[in-house]
Each structure stands twice: as C-alpha cells, then as structure tokens.
C-alpha cells in the first residue's frame, strides 16, 4: 500500500467553481501534511501545510486534515484559469531527514 494515495485526474472545471482535491494516507503517525502546486515544466512550490488535524485557510485556499479517516483535502474557492496546475499532496517524514512522500498529483484545468 502506498503511503499517500491521490487520484491523478485530470480534473476540469469552469472558472469560478469550487474545487475539491483529496488524498488518503496510510500511517496514523503522520503529522505534517503539505500541498504543493506545480505549473507545467516548473518545480513544485509549497502552497499550504497543516500540522496534525484541522483546517487552515489562506485566501481562496483551505487545507483540511481528518486524522480519524486519514484523509487530506484542498479546497479552492472561485477557481481561476491561473489555478490550472498539478496539485501534489505530501506528508513530511521528520524522522527520515524531513523527506517528503508525495501522492501521484492531480492535474487541474480551470476553463475560462
């Protein structure tokens, strides 16, 4: 079983839609959860991170962690064409030199 599972999509939505991106993870000991955004032919950039359980909001983006179901989510409100990218969920393994374990990444396209 993969440590982090993510549906690769692609996901296509109209401009202004609410987008929900989701991942599941296997180990209840994981504590740090990240969302990275990657534009085409670029390196990933950290979008949001959360520690343990709960919600974190930053502008149009909300990251959510449900530890009881081992589920992590990223919501994008009022989606824009500039949000079109690959979104990668990841967990940070502090006990292994802060390495990141990534999901497969979801390709998102926001149509204008």
């Amino acid at each position: 079983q993969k440590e982090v599972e993510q549906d690769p999509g692609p996901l296509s939505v109209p401009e202004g839609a609410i987008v929900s991106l989701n991942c599941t993870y296997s180990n209840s000991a994981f504590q740090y959860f990240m969302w990275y955004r990657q534009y085409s032919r670029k390196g990933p950039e950290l979008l949001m991170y959360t520690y343990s359980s709960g919600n974190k909001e930053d502008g149009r983006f909300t990251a959510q962690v449900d530890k009881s179901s081992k589920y992590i989510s990223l919501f994008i409100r009022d989606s824009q064409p500039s949000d079109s990218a690959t979104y990668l969920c990841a967990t940070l393994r502090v006990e292994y030199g802060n390495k990141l374990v990534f999901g497969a990444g979801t390709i998102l396209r926001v149509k204008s």
Partner: protein
Amino acid sequence: NAGVTQTPKFRVLKTGQSMTLLCAQDMNHEYMYWYRQDPGMGLRLIHYSVGEGTTAKGEVPDGYNVSRLKKQNFLLGLESAAPSQTSVYFCATISRLAGSHEQFFGPGTRLTVL
C-alpha cells in the same frame, strides 16, 4: 539569491552512458534531496543528505549515486544510464532549523535515455 539551481536543464543520453546532475543552493540549508518525477507517480525520493559528507538512500536509489562534498552542492550520478531512468529530476532543500517545513525545489532536469 538564486535559490536552488540545477544543471543541466535538458540532456539526452544513450543507454550505458554516464552523467552527473548538479544541484546548487545558496540558502545555506543543511538538508538536500533528489527526486524523480514520472507521469502518474508523483515525485519519488532517490537519495538525500542531512549534511556535508553524509548521504542516505530514498525510495528508488538503484542505478544512482550521490555525493555531498560541499554544503551547497548535491550531485546525482548515473553510472550506466538505462531507458527506465528517463524522467524529470528535481533537487530540493530544507533548513534544519526547528519549525522549517518547506522544501524548496529547483526547476528540474529533463533526462531522456535512448
């Protein structure tokens, strides 16, 4: 500040050839990583280093070697390239300071092995 840079940006190799990818960072970060990215598989960790002179294996280390002779540089070597090593390679760094959780990524190296 350049952040994290990778050299080269693109490369085409023939099976059996060798090459070295260079990652350089000017952020004085202790930890450095090499990932590969393949379609539908996210990024997978090849090797990493928690400090100058130290290296450790990641999830997919076979066929690769690394060296961290200087704090600012992390080299990834392919001794005998295989088509299965066709991929996009990313280097990343992170600070060892408590509370540092963001890995900073380079722009990537696109490698094709024929």
